[in-house]
Each structure stands twice: as C-alpha cells, then as structure tokens.
C-alpha cells in the first residue's frame, strides 16, 4: 500500500509533528514501506486464530484500591515551565 502526500500531511497534523515541504516525500516513502510489510502480514490466512492484543501472552495484574502516593507537587512543578497557585500554566486554549 502506498500513501499519498495528502495522507502524510493529515497524519502529521493529527500527531502534531511538523513535516515540512522537503521532508514530506522521504517520510511518505518510509511509511509506505512499513505499510507494505503490513500488507505481507495480512496476506497470511488467520482464519480461526484469536487475535492477540499484546505481544506477551499473560494477563493484567490488578492493584488493590488504596491511596499509595505521597504528594509531590512541589517536586513536579519545579520542572514545569510556568505555574501559579498550584496550577500548571499553558498557552491559552480557546474552545
């Protein structure tokens, strides 16, 4: 399967990755090659095989419902670019 340049721009936009003019074509070629590998995998007959959702064939361990974290706001916020009144500050988001 081969991707179009429009698709590359759309994927880049969704992933918030800047793929500028000259970069787009090489990215298109590399991603298309990945999809070709997937095409090969999909050619295999998997009738009757239960799909796996994880590479490891083990199940999710569960955690007992207990509060286990001590408060570390000060440490976390020490590396934040901007904070005020305990809040993390980010560039204005307009809905």
């Amino acid at each position, binding site marked *: 399967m081969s991707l179009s340049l429009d698709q590359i721009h759309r994927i880049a936009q*969704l992933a918030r990755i800047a793929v500028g003019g000259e970069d787009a074509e090489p990215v298109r070629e590399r991603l298309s090659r990945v999809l070709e590998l997937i095409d090969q995998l999909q050619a295999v007959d998997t009738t009757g095989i239960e799909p796996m959702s994880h590479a490891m064939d083990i*199940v999710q361990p569960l955690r007992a419902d207990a509060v286990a974290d001590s408060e570390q*706001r000060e440490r*976390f916020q020490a590396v934040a670019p*901007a904070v005020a009144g305990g*809040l993390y500050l980010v*560039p204005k988001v307009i809905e």
Partner: protein
Amino acid sequence: MAWEIVVGIETHAQLRTKSKMFSGASTAFGAAPNTQACAVDIALPGVLPVVNAAAVAHALRFGFAVGAAINRRSVFARKNYFYPDLPKGYQISQYEMPIVAGGTLKIVLPEGEKTVRLTRAHLEEDAGKSLHEDFQGMTGIDLNRAGTPLLEIVTEPDLRGAKEAVAYARTLHALLRWIGVCDGNMQEGSFRCDANVSVRKAGDDQLGTRCEIKNLNSFLFMEQAIEFEARRQIEVLEGGGRISQETRLYDADRGETRSMRSKEDAHDYRYFPDPDLLPLVISDEMLAQARDSLPELPDARRGKLVASYGLSHAQADLLTASIETSNYAIAAFEGAPQARWPDMANWISGPLSAKLNESNLDIGASRVAAAELRRLAQKVEDGTLSGKMVKDVLDAVWAGEGGVDEVIGKRGLQQISDAGAIGRIVDEVLAKNAKQVEDYRAGKDKAFNSLVGQVMKATQGKANPAQVNEILKARLTR
C-alpha cells in the same frame, strides 16, 4: 408534518474508588490543585499504569445489574488527542473489546414501561481540568481529576424525545447509586451525560444525521438542550437544509446549543491497544464476588414492598428512591403492627422526608431511628396516639425531646379515648353552638364538621376522632 425525535445517551459515571484507575493517587474531591496528581497522572516518562481492582469490580456489578454480557477478556486502548488537560496525549479507554456488552434498563413513563437497550459499558480514565480564567494570559491546568476511574455507559438510539431521555438518565442515576458504584453527585461531575440527537419523519426507518450535545450535568439542562436541538434540526430540515454531524455545547444561560466542532475537523482518535496494559481477564472468583455483593435491585425491592408489605405502587416508588430509604422502611416495618405499614410509608415519605430535606440529611443520618418510627406505629395501633398527633411526636423526636414514649409522657399527648370524658366535652360544645346544631338538623352537613372541629380544639387535638364522630352523631340524632 410529524417528526420523531431520536436520542441515544452516553453517560460518564465516576466509579466510587479511593484511588485512581491506573495509579495510587487519591480521588477525593476538592483538594488543592495538583496535590492528587502523581507521576502516572501527569505522565512523567517511564511510568506504567496498573489497573485498580475496585474499578473493575464496579464495572462487573453494573453489568450484572443490567443483565449484560461480561467480556471475560477485555482490552484497554489509547484514544489519541491533544489537549493540555490530557498530559499523555491519549486517554486510556476501551474500544473494540469493552468489559460490559449489551444489557437493558427498564424505565417508567406516563404511558407505561419501556426497555432501553444498552450498547456497552467500558472502563476509562477521566481527563484533568482546564481553568480558562486569566492566569497571566494563560490557561491553568489542574490534574487532580486526571486518571479518575469512569464507566462510560452507552445506549442504543432507543429514546424518543427529551422526556424519555431524562427518564432514562434518572433511572440510571438511581441504579448506579443503589448498587454503590457511583455517588451520583452531579455538582461534582460524578455523573455526566452526552446526548446524541437526531430527527426523522414519523414512520421513517432510517435514522437522521445526529448531533452530539456534550457535558449535560443536570436533568433540567438535558431536557432543555434536547428540546432545543430537536427544534433546531426540524427548522433546518423544513427550511430545505441539511443537518451536518457535529458536536454541540448547551449554553444554559441562553437556552440554546451551539456548534463546538464540525465533522471536518472532528477528532480522528486513532485507537490502538495500549501496549502498557495487558488484556484484562475476569476470573470466576471476581465474577462470583461481584454477583454476590450486588444488593436486591430496585425493581425487585419495589415488588417486595407491594407484595409483602401491602404498599401501593406509588408508595413503593417513593420508598425506593434510594436503597437507604427502602432499607430504613423495611427495618421500621419489622416488628411493627402490619396494619400500620402503609401509614408508616406515608410518615417516611411525608413528615420524615420533609425534616431530612430541611436539614439536608440522608436518611442514614435520620434523627428519628427506624425503631422510633416502629414505636410510633405501635402507639397509634394501641390507641394512645391519633393519626393527627403523629407528626407532632415525630417532630419532637427529631428535635431531640427524647424517644416516642418520652415525648408522649412529657407532653401529655395521651389520646382521650374515654367515652365519658369525650361525651362531657361534646355536651359543652353542643350547648355553646346552638346555631350549628340547628343548621345540622336542617340538613347542613358542613355544620357537623365544624362541631367536630370544636371538640378537637377543646381537647387540644387529643380526643379520639372516631369516637368524637360517633358520640356527636348519637347526640345529634337523639
């Protein structure tokens, strides 16, 4: 032309846990900003999510309560989008394989019962909160809510109009509280609904294009928003226009919905199984535990109140508003005279409820214990108290004047059931009210009630009303 309004509801119910869906941070409401947001919640590099067993148990309980299929193997997926209150850049949710599939919820409408089909219910985590007030020209982010466990419950498009949608939401809200999986606190955002609304001509079997109204956090707003949105769509269609699929927000101040984002820039969430989490497998033990910890459900409890306690359907509905109320009622009924059970039901939903509302208390914190209500019923049954005196005694017990027996003793509330004593008072009243006696004999029945009233007043309401009626009638027809 007749239009049919079609609604499907998605509900985000916050699950009642101490800690978060995937971390050990507290879920308590109202803490100082970011003091309950741990390394996992704020998405520091290298952290790993671990599933909260209690959240899974709550989801299972809900599945049983609505007769759904439990998927013994379900999968967590990443729902990818960018917003500052979602630090990972994705929300952990369930997509292709939710933990609960199908199920139904029965709702009661004026025209009868209706069964609403559920599509699914899946586990996910909540996002943080954006505060758009001005912080030096920036947006403030509080991540305390990030990672809070949610159960998203989705219906089929089975609801017809705003009233049915609200009836469904109320029934679901009551059920979630009843089985103890969600506190239902709408002010704190523990129960939030999105409504998918479309319209079609009556008789059409194709669904119209739908719009989704986000974040309805009150039943009133839900009703207003759906009504407005349906009218808007009908106007567009009748004007020859088309509905475009979009997400809309309800503005309660203006009473209208407005576009939030259209389909063109609608999110493409690129779901995929979360590699940080293994498949969630439900063991036989977990299933059995969830099933066994489920209380008697509201429907069964209502039926029992009617069949075993002789209450009317209306009374049973009132007493099953919450599991605590129905437990209180049953505790009070046990050992009380059977003939008084319907009266007791009225005391609970009447004067006791009024007191609870006044003080903003749950019935669990009632200042009149179930045992005192039972005592009250016994005192009516043995003739000590008249029905009229019940409210005063109940209010006095509430006010802390003591138990039922103590209040009766202190206030001298003993009902007068002595025929001789009542007869003497009746004679006095008759002597003083010659005019009413004359009126009554002339056929004016109203005069009789006035005479009864005079006797009751003379005895400060303590005379046995049935006896007063009897003696008065006998005297007047002499």
